[in-house]
Structures are given as structure tokens and as C-alpha cells.
């Protein structure tokens, strides 16, 4: 069975600085999707970035980028130039070809002014 692990329950970053959130997963599949979601206090899930496993190039969305290491089964999120609005719970997620979608435990990110 697939699993997703986020080993950092909490992280803190200074405004305008860079922070990296870690995520590892376990799977025997060769093709799948990986996601990072942001959940603010409203609890609405917001897609931050997605990566397709067959693509070797790391995905980038403005200040957000990933370091996808397929062999190591690692999928970290880097947030550059952190802003106060980035403070939220961040979830790493894995979606199999069969459609099953599972999440990690989450990392609570705080941004200090």
C-alpha cells in the first residue's frame, strides 16, 4: 500500500526568506501524481503545485517549486520569498493511476514578520 510521510509537524520561516517542506512516499507504481496542498484556517484545500511522476523536470509555480527525486521517493516543496499569507497547513499528497488519493500528516508553517 502507498504511504506518504511528512516528518516536520511544524516549520517556521522569516518573511522574505526561503523554507523547504519535506515529503517522502512509498509506492511500487511507476506512474503517479504528487501534489502539495495548502490549507488555511478556513479549511479550504488550495492546490499549490503538482508533479507527474513521468516528468523528470521539477514543477514550478511562481514562488513555489519542488525537488522531485523519484528514485529516493522524495518530493519536497520550496517556498521562496515567504509571505505572511503563506502561513497555513501544508499537505503532501499522492495519487495513484487507479485513482486512490492519500495525504501526509501535514506541516504547519508559520511566517514571522
Amino acid at each position: 500500500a502507498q504511504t506518504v510521510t511528512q516528518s516536520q509537524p511544524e516549520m517556521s520561516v522569516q518573511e522574505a526568506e526561503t523554507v523547504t517542506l519535506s515529503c517522502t512516499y512509498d509506492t511500487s507504481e511507476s506512474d503517479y501524481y504528487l501534489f502539495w496542498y495548502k490549507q488555511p484556517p478556513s479549511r479550504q484545500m488550495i492546490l499549490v503545485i503538482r508533479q507527474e511522476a513521468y516528468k523528470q523536470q521539477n514543477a514550478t509555480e511562481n514562488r513555489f517549486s519542488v525537488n522531485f527525486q523519484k528514485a529516493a521517493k522524495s518530493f519536497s516543496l520550496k517556498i521562496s520569498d515567504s509571505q505572511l499569507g503563506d502561513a497555513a497547513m501544508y499537505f503532501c499528497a499522492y495519487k495513484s493511476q487507479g485513482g486512490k488519493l492519500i495525504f501526509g500528516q501535514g506541516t504547519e508553517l508559520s511566517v514571522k514578520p
Partner: protein
Amino acid sequence: DVKVTQSSRYLVKRTGEKVFLECVQDMDHENMFWYRQDPGLGLRLIYFSYDVKMKEKGDIPEGYSVSREKKERFSLILESASTNQTSMYLCASSLLVRVSGNTIYFGEGSWLTVV
């Protein structure tokens, strides 16, 4: 505007009651999911469905069942609610087939308190 709607945002139920949580999507999605979210545990998959009348157990199906009689509706059922089922429940949906982006849509969550 695409939508996943969870009919009840806040519920308070008594121990032993049968509880229904409803989720409806208007995007003709094959996949639908039910999760519960608890502090420190993230989102844990209870059940998911990949088509009408089709379902698969997730990681924590004990104490829950589901129903998918129509494509747009996926119901989560607590046959006999217990206090340890107090949680926030989140519904999601997505297309089954591999399409570019494979976007997942979420409902707003249902807060269930069992007393």
C-alpha cells in the same frame, strides 16, 4: 463554477445514532473520496469510489460505510456514532482517467461532534 458540496457543515449527534454525511459534485467525476482530518494525523482516507456502486476501503474504514447509487453523490454513513468519530470530514472528487492536471476538487468540510 465547478463544485463539491457537503450538505452539512456542522452536526452534533448522540452516541449510537446513525449519521449520514452527503457529498455532491456537479462535474461528472468518476472518483469520489471521504477523509477525516484530525490534528497531527493529517487527512486519512476512509473510503473512495471510482464509479457508481463501486467502492474501496481506505486506510481507516472501520466504523464507516459508504453509498454511491448515483454518480454525483457519495454518502458516508456512521452506523452507530461513537465519540472517537468526532472529527472534520472532507469530501473530494476527481476524474478517473488520466488527464492533464488531474485536478482534485474538495468540499468545505463537515464538522461532526458526537456526544
